[in-house]
């Protein structure tokens, strides 16, 4: 039994740029033309590229705040529970709920939880670790971690049209426009 031959599904069309200017201008044009399912790839953080494709807010700071508050609360409550409820020790008649001596561990736990939440939250929102991503099918994509800038308009975008989108990307400063299989 043989499978009927089908062309591999298309992930999107990828334009390659040599300068950050070319990439950001193309991103803005694509966003203005109504494309939404797209992503830019750069060798270093380029905030304007994220803004240009319409990605302006991240939830990492909020998550970190929540993590920090939870850490601080759990640190304080743990000490309170241990010293007042679970294992009260009378040391020279001093109060059991001696809050000044609880501050340091509360602080350390705040930092610890917030830091771990920031990193785990960032990785989770980014979907990392991710063993496979179709963009790596692009023959020169290794340059994205070196000196090249890429813009990918994905086939899943409602406005995507193989011919129109290719023409659109060819009209930018791109030095190369290629199809990438899924």
């Amino acid at each position, binding site marked *: 039994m043989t499978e009927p031959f089908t062309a591999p599904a298309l992930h999107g069309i990828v334009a390659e740029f040599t300068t950050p200017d070319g990439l950001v201008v193309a991103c803005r044009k694509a966003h203005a033309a109504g494309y939404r399912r797209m992503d830019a790839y750069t060798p270093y*953080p380029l905030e304007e590229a994220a803004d240009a494709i319409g990605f302006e807010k991240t939830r990492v700071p909020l998550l970190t705040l929540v993590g920090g508050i939870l850490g601080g609360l759990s640190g304080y409550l743990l000490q309170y529970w241990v010293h007042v409820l679970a294992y009260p020790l009378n040391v020279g008649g001093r109060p059991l709920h001696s809050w000044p001596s609880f501050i340091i561990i509360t602080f350390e736990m705040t930092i*610890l939880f*917030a*830091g771990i939440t920031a990193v785990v939250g960032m990785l989770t929102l980014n979907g990392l*670790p991710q063993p496979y991503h179709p963009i790596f099918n692009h023959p020169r994509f290794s340059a*994205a*971690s070196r000196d090249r800038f890429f813009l990918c308009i994905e086939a899943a975008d409602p406005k995507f049209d193989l011919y129109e989108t290719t023409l659109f990307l060819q009209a930018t400063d791109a030095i190369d426009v290629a199809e990438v299989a899924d």
Partner: protein
Amino acid sequence: MMEQVPETKASTTERLLPRQSPVLTPGHTLETITDKIVSIVLRRPVTLGWLGGFAFFFGLLNLMLFAMAYLFFRGVGIWGINIPVGWGFAIVNFVWWVGIGHAGTLISAILLLLKQRWRNSINRFAEAMTLFAVACAGMFPLVHTGRPWLAYWLFPYPNTMGVWPQFRSPLLWDVFAVSTYATISALFWFVGLIPDLATFRDTATNPVAKTIYGLLAMGWRGSARHWKRYESAYLLLAGLATPLVLSVHTVVSFDFAISILPGWHTTVFPPYFVAGAIYSGFAMVLVLAIPIRRFYGVQDMMTLRHLDNAAKVMLGTGLIVAYGYAMEAFYAYYSGNAYELFMFKNRLLGPMAWSYWCLILFNILIPQVLWIRKVRLNPAMLFCTSLVILFGMWLERFVIVVTSLHRDFLPSSWGMYVATRWDYAVFAGTLGLFFSAMFLFVRLMPMITIFEMRMLLPQAKLSEEVAAHD
């Protein structure tokens, strides 16, 4: 394919005009920066010099393993500690190593928040230095407990004995502070590495190396959305690490200051300990950076400007430390407390006086040469000054720990402290652990942050008309 960037020797103009000395020597592009840093790990053959250095420090590391094995077999009695000096080298070394770690966090977090872009080329190996220094530090309190296999009793966990740790004790604060510090430093270091590991994955030709770097890079692809969250998380980590690093040595100083021993019970301890930590940490940064930039030809990325700036930080923090010493003397005099006064006289003239006067010489007097610009711009002299400061800062902790403990309130309980060969063996062994880890690090990981160096390039920025879009 690989154009090697010409190795820039510090030119005469660079020597004469240090203020014009750039953070990154002009002429680099995105490609050359990547190639240069990647080639140190992936293309450069293992040299005899590297092997020799690594073998030496690896030998020291084995000495540590031997000394530790004997320690576990016989107990802490093989060290010079006894009553009244129960802390000895173990705590001296602990404080010294934790302090060294502080410069790494200061460079990576505080200088990031202050937008000091020159830090970009030294933060990665300074962070690695922090990690290894904290690893060395953490070992001492652990083995000093005498029964390190029960050290987990320090952590609060439900147990069949029905007891809980005493959270009001500074020693427990220390457990939390140092373990949090180690965790956050490791996270900060690893998060910083992810994009560079992706570069390694994409550049490596050896399939084993490619697989390992690929696994560590976790599929990083440089997406704009990822970068945005990444930058946000990185900045938050820096913001969290900044108060953390100040708190860690504060807590370490509480181990002393919360007690009532003469010479320990002072409020100047936290700021003076933090300044001392940064002082010794920057000295260690220079002790590592000066040979690295020479042997790996990265003088164009770690320029004289970096050395100059680090020397100035040392000068500043050194003066804070000097102020701390002056205040200790003033407290002893002004307190009117006979024990405090005696403690100080004993430091100046007692049987341990040599350590105090060496401390003043190494930590206060000799480092004043850093006022001279020629010294700050001369790597060899800076290297020697840094070694002197490192030794001086070790002596400072020795003076604090030993002179206060060996003669406290009652003359009948006085004693002397003499370190044994096992004390020295363990200390030398941690130096071995630290430096062998550094040797491996420079050969296995990008020791300069590639993506942050790219951001220093003028062509990495958007042109004005594109940037002024909004």
